[in-house]
C-alpha cells in the first residue's frame, strides 16, 4: 500500500518506521527542514518538505494514488484540514486523523473524518478496562521478589460485602496486612473480619494473583 503521513514528529516518525518494516511504501510530509533531514538521513528518502494541507504539496506527493492518508501533527485543525483535502480533492479512500484534544473526536466524526485516533481517549479506555472504578492502586513494588503492595477499595456493589474474609476464596499467597475504615484507627484484618463498602485493605501480593484478589474483593 502507498501511505502518506503528515507530520514527522514522534508519532509520524515511529509510524513510518513500523509501516516500512511491514513492507509498505511510505512518505512523510513535514514542514520543518531539520526534522526532514534527520528522517531522511536515517531512513532514506522518505520525507518530503512541505505543508500537508496544501494542494500542490499533496499533488507532488502523489496523493491521488495513495491508499491511506494519516495526519499525525499535534494541531487538530491541521489534521482535520489535511484529511479533508486528501479525501475530497484527491479521493484518498482511507483518511485517519490524530486527535490531541479528546473533545474533538466527536466533532471530527460529525465533520466526515471517519477514522480518528485520540491518545488520551485510548489510554482512558485501557485504564477503565483494567480497573472499572480504579479500586486497586499500586503503592510500591518490593524488589527483587517483585511483590506488590496494593490498596484495594471495596466499592458499593461488591459481592464480598457482608461476608467474612475466611469465607472468601482468597489465595493464601496474598497477605492482607491492614484494614483502614473511616473514623477508626487501622487494624489488622482477621479471618472473622466482615467486609464493608468503603473499606480499604492494604495487601502484599505477587502480580500473578493480583487479578484474582481484585475480583474476589471488588467484583460485583
Amino acid at each position: 500500500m502507498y501511505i502518506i503521513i503528515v507530520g514527522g514528529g514522534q508519532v509520524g516518525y515511529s509510524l513510518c518506521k513500523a509501516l516500512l518494516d511491514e513492507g509498505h511504501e511510505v512518505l512523510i510530509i513535514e514542514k520543518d527542514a531539520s526534522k526532514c533531514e534527520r528522517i531522511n538521513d536515517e531512513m532514506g528518502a522518505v520525507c518530503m518538505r512541505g505543508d500537508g494541507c496544501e494542494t500542490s504539496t499533496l499533488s507532488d506527493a502523489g496523493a491521488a494514488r495513495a491508499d491511506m492518508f494519516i495526519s499525525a501533527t499535534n494541531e487538530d485543525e491541521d489534521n482535520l484540514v489535511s484529511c479533508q483535502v486528501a479525501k475530497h480533492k484527491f479521493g484518498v479512500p482511507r483518511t485517519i486523523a490524530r486527535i490531541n484534544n479528546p473533545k474533538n473526536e466527536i466533532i471530527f466524526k460529525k465533520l466526515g473524518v471517519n477514522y480518528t485516533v485520540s491518545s488520551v481517549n485510548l489510554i482512558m479506555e485501557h485504564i477503565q478496562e483494567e480497573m472499572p472504578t480504579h479500586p486497586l492502586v499500586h503503592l510500591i513494588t518490593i524488589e527483587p521478589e517483585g511483590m506488590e503492595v496494593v490498596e484495594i477499595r471495596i466499592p458499593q456493589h461488591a459481592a464480598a460485602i457482608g461476608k467474612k474474609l475466611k469465607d472468601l476464596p482468597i489465595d493464601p499467597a496474598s497477605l492482607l496486612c491492614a484494614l483502614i475504615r473511616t473514623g477508626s484507627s487501622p487494624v489488622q484484618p482477621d479471618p472473622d473480619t466482615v467486609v464493608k463498602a468503603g473499606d480499604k485493605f492494604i495487601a502484599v501480593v505477587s502480580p500473578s494473583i493480583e487479578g484474582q484478589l481484585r475480583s474476589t474483593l471488588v467484583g460485583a
Partner: protein
Amino acid sequence: MNIIIVGCGRVGAQLAALLDAEGHKVTMLDISANSFRRLPSTFGGTAMVGDGTDESALRKAGIEKADALVAVTQGDNRNIMSAQVAKHIFNVPKVLCRIYDPLRKDIYDTLGLEAISPTTVLAQLLKARLEVQ
C-alpha cells in the same frame, strides 16, 4: 443580530467596530487577551478569551443563540475548523470564514463553506487599479 467573531486581529476588530456601531450584539473570541486592545474604546460588545475551534469555548460565547459567525484568525485551518463546527455542529444560520490559500478556498467552496480569500480579492483589486493608469 447576535454575531460571534473568532480572531481579534485588524480585520476582526474593525468588523466588530462596524457591526457594534450598527447596533448588533457582537462577541469577540480570541486566544490572547492582548488582541482586544485593537477594539475601539466605544466597543459595547463582549470580548472573551478562548479557542474558537473549541466546542465549549464557542458554547460560552453563546454560539447556540448566534445568528452568524465569522472566522478571521491568522490560521486558515483554524478558520476552517471553527466555521465547520459552527455550521455543522451548532447549525449557525450564517457562517463566513477567511482562507488565505486560494486553492484551499476552492476545495471548501465545493464542500459548502462560505469563504473569502483575501489573496484573490486583493490581487484582483491591485490589477484593476493598475489598469486604470
